[in-house]
Structures are given as C-alpha cells and as structure tokens.
C-alpha cells in the first residue's frame, strides 16, 4: 500500500507516450493504453487486498508554504479509496480494451487513447487524495479530460457545443466547491479530511458554518454528478464516443460527486439541514430524470437520464444517512451501467444509428449483446438476485428508516419508472421486427464482447458482497472504525421494490413487447405531459432564455454604456472643443477622448463618494 501512488502514474505514462509517439504507433497505441491500465488494475487489486487486512495507510509531504500556512500533498488508502481504485481501474481497463474494437479505423485513434489515459490518471488521482485541495485539483483535471473526450468528434457542431456546455456547467458547481473548501480552510485551518472532521467533531466550527460549507461542497457534487438543476450537460455529453460515455459519464467521473459527499460524510452528518438537502435533491433528481427517460428515443440519451436518476438514488441514500447504501449502489451501478453503455455501443456499432424507433428485432442478430444488455437491464430494474436489487433495496431501507417517508415513496415510483423505461428500451431494440432497413448487422469483435462479459458477470454477482441473506461483508468493512452506521429495515420494503419493478416490466412488455396495448395510449391521453417530458421539462430552454441571454444582455449593456453613454457625453464635449481639436482629431478615430473621459468620470465619481462620506475616517 505504500506505493499506491504509482497507480495513477501508469495511465499518465500512457498519456505521455501517446502524446509523443502516438502518430508512429497508430492503432498499436491501444496496447500501450491497455497494458498500462492493466498494471493499474493489478496494483489496485493488490492495494484493496492489503486494505482488507491492514489498517488505513496515509502519507503526506509538504507542498506549498504561504505565510504560516502549510499545504501538503500525499495519498491515502482507506476503505472507500481502495474500493474506488478498483472500480475505476477495472472499468477503465475494460473500456480501453473495448475501444480497440469500437474505435477501429478512426483516424485519431492514438489521440483517443491518449485522452483516455489522461482521464484515468486524473480520476485515480482524485480517489486517493487525502485532502480537499488535492481532490479539487484532480477534480478539475477530470473535467478537462471529460471536455476533450466529449468533443472528440469535433466535426459535429453538437459535440463541440456539448463539450463546452459540460465544462462550463460543471464549473458552476465547482465555484460552490471552491468557496466551501476555502471557507472550511479558514474555519479549521486545514484542507486535510482528517483535520476537518476532527475540528467538526470537537465543535470548533459553528453549526451554521457546517451547514453552509456542506451545502457549498454539495453544489460541487451536484454539478459533477449531474443532479437537478445542473443536470442538463450530462445527456448532451452523450455526443462523445460511446466507450467514453461508459467510462466517464456512467461509471467514474459522474460518480465523483457521490464519492465526494461520501468522503466528506462526517461533515454532512453534522448538519441535519445539509443531509436533508442532499436527500431531497437526490430524490427529486431520481424521479425527475426517470420521468424524462420514459419518452426519449435516443438509446444513449435514455441511458444518460437513467444515469442521472441512479446518481440521484445514491445522493438520496447518503442524505438518508445510508453511507453503505450509497457507496454500495455506486459500485453496482458502475458495473451494470458501464455494461449497458458498452452494450449500447455494440448495438450502435452494428446498426449505425442511435434512434430506437429504427431498431427492433436485434435479439436474433446480436446473440451476445442481446443477453448481456438484458442482464444490465434486469440489474438496473432491481429484479431480485441481480446486483441492482440489493443495492437499491439498501437505499430504500435507508430512506424509510431515516424517516423520509415522502422521499421513500418518490424513490419507489422512480424505481417503477426505471423498470418501465429500461424494458421499453430493451423491447424496442431487441424484440419484434426491424423497423428500418438494416444491412450487414453482425456481432461485435471479441475485444468488444469480452469486456462486456466481464461486466455482465459483475452485474450479477457484485450484489452478493452485501446482502441481507448471506451477510453484509461490504457494509461491515466500509463502516469499520468510522461508525457511519448500517441500517436494517422491514422485509416488506424488499417486496414492494420487487413488486414495482415487476409491474414496470410488465407494463413495458404489454406496450412494447407483446404490443397488446397501444403504444400511445398514454401519450394520446396526456399530450401535455408527454410534451413536457419529451422536452425534458424545458430546462434547457429555460436556461437558454434566462442565463445565456442574461449574460449576453450584461455584455450588450456594458457595450451600450461604452458606445452610447460615454460616447454620448463625448459628443457634447467634442462639440465644444471641435474647433480646436479638428486638426488633431484627424489622426484619431474620435474615440480616444472617450477613454480619457472614462478615467475622469471614474475619478470624479470616487471623489464625489469621498466627499459625500465626508472623507473623514473613523
């Protein structure tokens, strides 16, 4: 464990090699990336095994001295970090392998692997950071990697826009994180997680301040994890290549927000208001995104809204004091959602469209992808015996036992939605007859199917590390020594969860599988609801009208001041001095007086204020 810092360096090495020699290596670049992430994966597993037996390991060195303040860098291997290391390096390794087939023939193949390396480096660096500042640094780097990868198909205008939008939307959240972080620093004198928690524990920080900083940090998590109301970038981010969606926008980066809240859990726990905020935002996001997912027709967008919704579940769990539930769902979700995305990629690879209206009948043609997609769908729908069932159950129990009855029922409804839209997706893609001409539909190469199979197995078995039947190993291990608590709940919750998910599946089956019900029997009865859902509650339009126009308006306004107001004044002055200044004005464009004028006005304004306030101090 002493050398855990090496783990992020392998992908960094891959990035550097590909930056320098990518052009020569061409598609052999894939091997560089795959081997180096494999090294990270192997090392991560060793570290996890070490942490399962040994205690938490942490080491730090001085980095920066500002006045009397000492900032440090280092790394830490605690339960959460060790688990995250394995999740991230595993998914990254699988995505590296998968991309070899998926990106085959792309002329910027080495660049793609280079960006993947950069991203993996940043993400692994993020999860072993022992303090907030270091976390923030990698947090930003992760965002940069995501920016580059979303915009990978830069010749598409939409991809370019999506990349920019993703970066800026998440940055809005980061402002909250940065302010929260700096505030915490001034309250506790440290960026170290341990020191901050100790100070909070000892009551050195006032209650209001705890709530304020926790909520500010949560705003950062909201941006990164695509929670309401900063979620709109995530569906747009689907413009990136599909393996990227699987890695960044399903399994790792978007989960970073959840990870941050989990890592800062003692701070959140200390404030009832902050916990409530996290729970409410999580639950609202869960049902909100799930309801949008009901009507989308782009295969990746359905999955994107489903990701947003599932991340909402995790937040709900954390906000309901369900530390184990949140982290557990983070893990299972990483596997089954990565599986779903890779399978979706495989479908897209085969049929060259993302529109599910044009698909259908692929079950017979994609003999591997179909069953694997079904496994993922079953897992996310919470069908018993699959991994998602156990983790979702944990979340519902947490919400119930924490007393959030209303949020509990929201989550149950969201679970129903989830089962419905996922099976709607499944049936529309794989069942029935093809709804458009499909030529040369064939199964993907083994480099693509092999990673999917690994994830398929994990999507089934990953849940068994923490079940009410065979023991709660993961939960016991995660809370060991930090007392975050683990909850047991009534059995009926499990039954309800099973029931709603089966109901959702049944409804989807009737509407899209057997088609005994008219597909539009709902949308024709509720046209307005359908339109609202289809247009994603008009959130983008709202932002467009308010913020973007707002910023443009401010800009125009300032320009207006510059051009009309100041220049208008100038015209008066010019009228007076025209006779004198005619010859001199020829060289100038006539604006330079404006500049001097602005300076004089500024001075006069300050002088005026100075005079009004009396200019006397004290």
């Amino acid at each position, binding site marked *: 464990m002493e050398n855990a810092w090496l783990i992020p360096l392998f992908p960094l090495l891959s990035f550097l090699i590909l930056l320098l020699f990518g052009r020569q290596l061409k598609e052999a670049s894939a091997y560089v990336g795959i081997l180096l992430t494999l090294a990270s994966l192997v090392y991560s597993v060793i570290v996890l095994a070490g942490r399962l037996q040994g205690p938490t390991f942490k080491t730090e060195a001085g980095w*920066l001295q*500002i006045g009397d303040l000492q900032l440090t860098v280092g790394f830490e291997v605690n339960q959460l970090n060790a688990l995250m290391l394995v999740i991230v390096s595993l998914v990254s390794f699988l995505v590296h392998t998968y991309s070899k087939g998926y990106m085959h023939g792309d002329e910027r193949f080495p660049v793609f692997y280079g960006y993947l390396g950069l991203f993996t480096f940043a993400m692994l660096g993020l999860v072993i950071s022992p303090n907030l500042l270091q976390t923030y640094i*990698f947090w930003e780097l992760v965002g940069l990697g995501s920016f580059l990868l979303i915009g990978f198909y830069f010749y598409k205008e939409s991809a370019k826009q999506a990349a920019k939008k993703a970066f800026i939307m998440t940055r809005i959240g980061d402002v909250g994180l*940065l302010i929260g972080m700096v505030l915490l620093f001034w309250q506790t004198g440290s960026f170290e997680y341990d020191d901050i928690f100790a100070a909070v524990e000892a009551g050195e920080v006032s209650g209001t301040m705890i709530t304020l900083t926790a909520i500010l940090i949560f705003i950062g998590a909201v941006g990164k994890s695509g929670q309401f109301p900063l979620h709109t970038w995530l569906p747009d981010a689907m413009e990136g290549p599909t393996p990227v969606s699987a890695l960044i926008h399903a399994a790792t980066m978007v989960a970073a927000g959840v990870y941050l809240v989990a890592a800062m859990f003692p701070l959140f726990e200390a404030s009832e208001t902050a916990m409530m905020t996290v729970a409410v935002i999580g639950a609202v996001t869960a049902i909100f995104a799930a309801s949008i997912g009901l009507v989308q027709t782009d295969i990746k967008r359905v999955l994107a809204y489903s990701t947003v919704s599932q991340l909402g579940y995790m937040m709900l769990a954390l906000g309901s004091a369900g530390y184990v539930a949140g982290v557990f769902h983070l893990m299972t979700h990483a596997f089954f959602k990565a599986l779903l995305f890779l399978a979706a990629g495989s479908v897209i690879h085969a049929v060259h469209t993302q529109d599910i209206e044009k698909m259908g009948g692929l079950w017979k043609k994609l003999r591997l992808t179909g069953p694997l997609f079904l496994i993922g769908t079953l897992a996310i729908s919470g069908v018993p015996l699959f991994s998602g069932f156990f983790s979702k159950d944990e979340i519902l129990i947490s919400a119930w036992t924490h007393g959030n009855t209303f949020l509990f029922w929201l989550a149950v409804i969201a679970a129903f939605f989830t089962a419905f839209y996922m099976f709607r997706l499944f049936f529309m893609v794989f069942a029935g007859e093809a709804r458009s001409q499909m030529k040369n539909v064939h199964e993907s190469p083994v480099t693509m199917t092999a990673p999917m199979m690994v994830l398929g197995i994990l999507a089934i078995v990953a849940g068994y590390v923490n079940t009410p039947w065979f023991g709660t190993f993961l939960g016991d291990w995660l809370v060991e020594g930090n007392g975050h608590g683990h909850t047991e709940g009534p059995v009926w919750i499990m039954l309800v969860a099973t029931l709603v998910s089966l109901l959702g599946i049944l409804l989807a089956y009737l509407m899209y599988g057997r088609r005994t019900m008219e597909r539009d029997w709902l949308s024709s009865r509720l046209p307005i609801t359908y339109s609202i859902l289809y247009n994603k509650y008009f959130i983008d339009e709202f932002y467009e009208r308010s913020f973007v126009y707002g910023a443009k308006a401010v*800009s125009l306004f*300032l320009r207006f001041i510059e051009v009309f107001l100041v220049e208008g004044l100038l015209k008066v002055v010019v009228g007076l001095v025209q006779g004198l200044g005619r010859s001199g004005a020829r060289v100038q464009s006539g604006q330079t007086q404006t500049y001097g004028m602005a300076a004089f006005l500024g001075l006069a304004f*300050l002088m005026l204020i100075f005079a009004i306030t009396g200019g006397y101090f004290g």
Partner: protein
Amino acid sequence: MDIETLQSFEWGMMAPEFIILGVATILTLLDLFLPKRFNRKHLGWLAFAGVLAAIVSSVTLIGHDTDSILFDTFRLDSFAKAFKLLLLTGAALVLLLAVDYEPKEGMAEYRGEFFYLFLAALLGAMMMSSSGDLITLFVGLELLSISSYILAGLKKQNLKSNESAMKYVINGSISTAITLFGMSYVYGMTGTTNLKAMAGTLASLSEQQHIYILGMAFLMIFIGLSFKLASAPFHMWAPDVYEGAPTPVTAFLSVVSKTAGFIIMIRIMFSIFAAVPTGGQEAVPMLFEMQDYLAFLAGATMIVGNVVALRQRNIKRLFAYSSIAHAGYILVAFTAMSYVMFDSIWFYMLAYLFMNLGAFAIIQLLTANSGNEDISEFAGLYRRSPLLAVAMAILILSLAGIPGTAGFIGKLNIFMGALMVEPAHYVLVSIMIAATVVSYFYYFGIMTQMFFRPAAEGQGKIKLQTGITAAIAICTAATVIFGVMPQLAFDFLQTNFNQFVDFMQ
C-alpha cells in the same frame, strides 16, 4: 556634491541598471554607424545578452544588505531585488519574441530602434523598482512611458500602429497629469519628495482637513497610475493600443509595463499612505481605510475585462481585455493587504509573465505570416502542430486558473490572502471567482478552435524560429513547473527576501 561624495557611493548596487544603460548606448551607436545592409536582428541578440548579464548581476546582488545611495533616492531592498528579477526575466523573453518579429509591412530599416528603445523602457521600470524618491520614481515612469509610446508606433507604415501610438500618448499624458496633480498635494503637505521623509512627516498629521486633502491625493495618484496597470477606469486605451502595436510590444505592455505599474503603485501607496493616520478611534492608517475604494475598482476591473472580452474576435484585443482582468485579480491582492500580499503579487506576476508571454509568442507565430488576427487563425492548430497546440492549451489553462498550472497557484494565493485578513473580503473573492468563470467562456473558445475545428484550407506548416521557440518552451515549462512545484518560488522568496520586512526601513 563633490567628487569625494560621488566616489563614496557604492555604485555596485546599481550594476544591473548600468549594464542596461551601457548596452542601450552601445546599441544606439551601432545602429547609427553600422552599414544599412547589416541585419539589425543581431542587435537583438546583443540586447538579449545585455539583459542576461543584468539578470546575473541582479542575482549576485540578492545577498546584498538593504541599503540606499544617492541620499536615499536609490534603494536596494528586497522589494527592489525581487521585482527587478521579474522585470528582467520578462524583458529577456520579450526580446526572444522581438528578434523573430518580421511583420509583412517590413520594418528592417528602423528595426534597430526597437532594441534600444526597449532597453530604455526597461531601465525606467528598473529605476522605479529601486526608487526612494518621488522625483526618481517619476523620471523612471516617464522614461518607461515615453519609450513605450514610440515602441507602439514602430510599424511606421501601418495605420493601426500609428493610431495606437497616438492614443497611447494622449491617454498617457492624461494619466501623468492626474498622477502629478496628486503627487503635488502630497509634496505640498510635507515639503519633501523623499518617500521616507514624507512618511515621517505624515505620521504626525492630526488636522482633519489635511487628512482630507491626502485622501483626494490618494485617489488621484491611484487613478493616474491605474493607466499603467490598465485597470478601471483607465483601461479603455488597452484594446486599441494592444491591437495596433507590434506583437512584441503588446507583449511588453501587457507584462513588463504592467509589472512596472504595480511596482510604482506599491512603492508610493505603501510608503506614503500607510503612514497617514486617520484620526479615528482606532489608529488605522489611511491605506486601510481606502480599501473599499480599491475593492470597488478591483471588482469593476475584473468584471469589465472579462465581460467585454466575451465579444472579441481579434485575438490581440481579446488578450488586452484578458490582461485588464488579470490586473483586476492582482488588485484584489493589493486591496486585501494581508501579510502575504508581496508574496502573492510577486508570484502572480511571475506566473502571469510566463503564461501571458508564452501565449503572445504563439500568437505572434500564428499571426505574423498571415497578418490575420482573427481568433479563427487558431482553428485546427492541433492538426497542424500538436505540440504547439498543447503548449498553448497549457498556457490558456493557466490563464484560466485551472489546477496544475502556475495560474491556479497564483489565484489560490490571492484567495487565501483576501480571506485571511479581518474582516475577510468575501464579496471581492466571490466577484473574482465569478469573473474567473466568465473568463472560461473566451479562453475555452480558443481551446475549441485549436482542438475541435478543422484547419482552414491552404495553411501550411508553421515555421518555427529559434528565439520564439525557446520563449514558448521556457514559458510552458515554467508554467507547469510552478504549477506543480510552487514551493520552488516561495522558498526562493522566503530564504532571500524574508517577507519584505525591509520595505519601510
């Protein structure tokens, strides 16, 4: 003053200034007597060697005790040493840009002028950093300004360059007038021009009317000098002048001249106004009482710079607004006046020097051949020249303040400084963060151009010249190194300058 007095001065303290003066003189003579066909580019390398020699001599002076000569008009304190190094480093990098500057109009016949005028400007800036007297400060300021006016108009055949010089000189004169008017009040109150003597006299001031007059003087001097910083309300000249001036001159104005502006600002404000009592219940110096005004101007500068930059298509105009915004960030540190103020301003200037000069080097490289300064000139840079694009990306990320770069550490320091004082400047810090977010829009606009746009038709390979390549390499490397290991710079400050405690001695 007899010869013995003159000899008794320790002239060695002025060695860097003498070197620059000497080289400038030699260059003048060479330019005058060398035949026309001799390529004046070589004079640039001579100037570069001179600046390097001055850097070496400044470094040897670091261990020198704090002292002053010429009746306390020339000071060698930590402040002078530290900031002189910044000026010289910046000047050396600008010279690397300048030797490779070959605009389409051609300026071969008066190219030599550039180098000695440049050194004269540099000399003025260096004198300012060491001045202990209003007279020498002012002379240094004017030496810098007048040389800069000519430099801005050096492309004599180019209409825009002429316009730029004209606007610069007019605005500069207004600023000088305001500054001088303010200074005259202070002189009137104290009867001396020596900063230290002034501080002594002012400390015993108790008459409220006098304090009131000094408050007005404070505002006038600050507004006048804000011309050099290109900060609000004296920022409007910057875009026009930056756009028209030759690119190396723009780089000089945005970095070296701005640094010089902060030098004189700190010298005057902290020497004089930190000593003025305000006569309130608590003995707070006037400088601290004026924080609200400074905060207002800092905020306005950041907002104006970043918001107006959004609408720019010309890359040099865009960087002009960006440089206005950066002046605003540094003003935040100035406003906060925490005990790490000198360190954070110095570090920010260092980071800004590398990232901005590096960016200008790449701008010059891309725009010099085509003459097109539209931001679309960056389109597809990643395809045309991946390394150049990555270098530019690093520099831009640093300007935007993304972690892992020197720019981030600089901003972080300023945040910390502004929040560590009592009462903390929450509002100002919030404005700064918000303004930074706005800046992502235009910085990432350039990134989008470089990485996500195809190159225009018919654009060939980019010709890399020695000087400019070296400048880009140094700047990019330094941006990363100081971003990852900022302790290098802070250790250097702490071991050698001891938090600038000798500033007022």
